[in-house]
C-alpha cells in the first residue's frame, strides 16, 4: 500500500511498498495492513512504526499528534 506522512513543514515519508504501519491512535495503538477498509482517525503524540513489504527493517517517526486517512489502499498521515 501507499503511505504518505506529511507535516506542515515537510514531507517526512513517502513509499509505495509498505506492508505494515503502526500508529498511536487516540484510544491506543493500532496497525493498518494492506487492503484496509476506509478509515479516518485521530492520532496522539507518539511513534509511527513502518515496515516495507519483504523487508525486516523498521522505520520510526516521532509525531506530536495528527490525523490519518485510509482510502483505496492509500494511507495519508497528516502529522504535527
Amino acid at each position, binding site marked *: 500500500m501507499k503511505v504518505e506522512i*506529511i*507535516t*506542515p*513543514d*515537510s*514531507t517526512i515519508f513517502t513509499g509505495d511498498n509498505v506492508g505494515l504501519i503502526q500508529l498511536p*491512535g*487516540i*484510544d491506543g495503538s*493500532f496497525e493498518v495492513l494492506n487492503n484496509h*477498509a*476506509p*478509515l*479516518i*482517525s*485521530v492520532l496522539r503524540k507518539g511513534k509511527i512504526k513502518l515496515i516495507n513489504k519483504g523487508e525486516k527493517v523498521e522505520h520510526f517517526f516521532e509525531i506530536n*499528534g495528527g*490525523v490519518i*486517512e485510509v*482510502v*483505496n489502499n492509500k494511507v*495519508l498521515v*497528516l502529522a*504535527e
Partner: protein
Amino acid sequence: MAGLKDVRIRIASVKSTQQITNAMKMVAASKLRRAQTAIIKLRPYAAKLREILQNLSASIDHSDENVFSQERKPEKILLVVIASNRGLCGAFNSNIMKMAVHFTETTYSQQFSKNNVSFITIGRKASEYFRKRKYNVLESHDELFDQLTFANASILAEKLMKGFAAKDFDRIDLIYNQFKNAAVQRLIVEQYLPIAPPQAMAQSPVARVEADYIFEPDKEVIVRELIPKTLRIQLFKAALDSFASEQGARMTAMQKATENAKDLLRDLNISYNKARQNAITNAILEIVSGAEALKG
C-alpha cells in the same frame, strides 16, 4: 552645469547604492524561493485537512456545539495584522496598515468608537505603526519571523483560541498579504474565529466519491480534535503567505531601484562627459587664442 568633480562624486555614490539594491534583490530572491517552497508544501496539507473536516461536518450536525464555531454578537474585536520586520519592500507595509485602519473605521466603526477593537501585531513595522498611533495593541509577536516554524505559530494560535473561548473576543480576523506570485500579493481579511460556517467552505466543487469510512473513535471526537488543528494550520499558513509576499515585494522593489539607478547613471555619465568636453574645448580655445596673440 555642475562641476566635474561633483558629477564624479555623484556617479560614485549612485553606483554604490546600485550595488546595495542589487545585493538586496538577490537576497530577497533566494529567501523568496525558500518561502515559496514552504507555502507550496503546506497548501496540500491544509487542503487535505479541510477536506476531511468538510466530509465529517457534512455528515454530522454538531458543529454548532463547538465553542469555536459559536457565533456571538461582535462586541469585542481582535485584529491580527501581519506585516514585516524590515522595510525596503515597496508599499507592502503601508498597504497593509492602510487596509487595517480602513477596515477598522468602516466595518467595525461602532466597536471602534467604544474602544473595543484590539490588535495583535506580527512584524515590527506593524507594531511600531499601531503603537505610535495609540491603537490598542495587546501583544506583538515580531519574533515569529525570526523562526517561522509551525511550532511557533501554534503557540500564538493557542492563545487566540483561548481568548476566543474565554469570551475575551467575539470575533478574530486576520489581515495579511496572500502570496500569488513573486510580483503579486493579494491583501485579504480573513475571518479566523468563529469558524466560517461549512456552507461557505463546501462551495468548492469537490466531487468526491463518498467512501464508507470507519471513524475511530467516533465522528464527534474527530471533529473536536480537528478544529484546533485546522486553526493552527490556518494561522501558520497566513504567516507563511505574508512572509513569501514580503520577499516578493522586496525583490520587485529592489529590482526597480536597481533599474532606476541604471537610468540615473546613464544621465550622469552624459553630463559628466559634456562637462569634460567643455573643459577641454575651453583649454584648447585658450591655447589657440594665446598662440594667435603671440603671432600678432
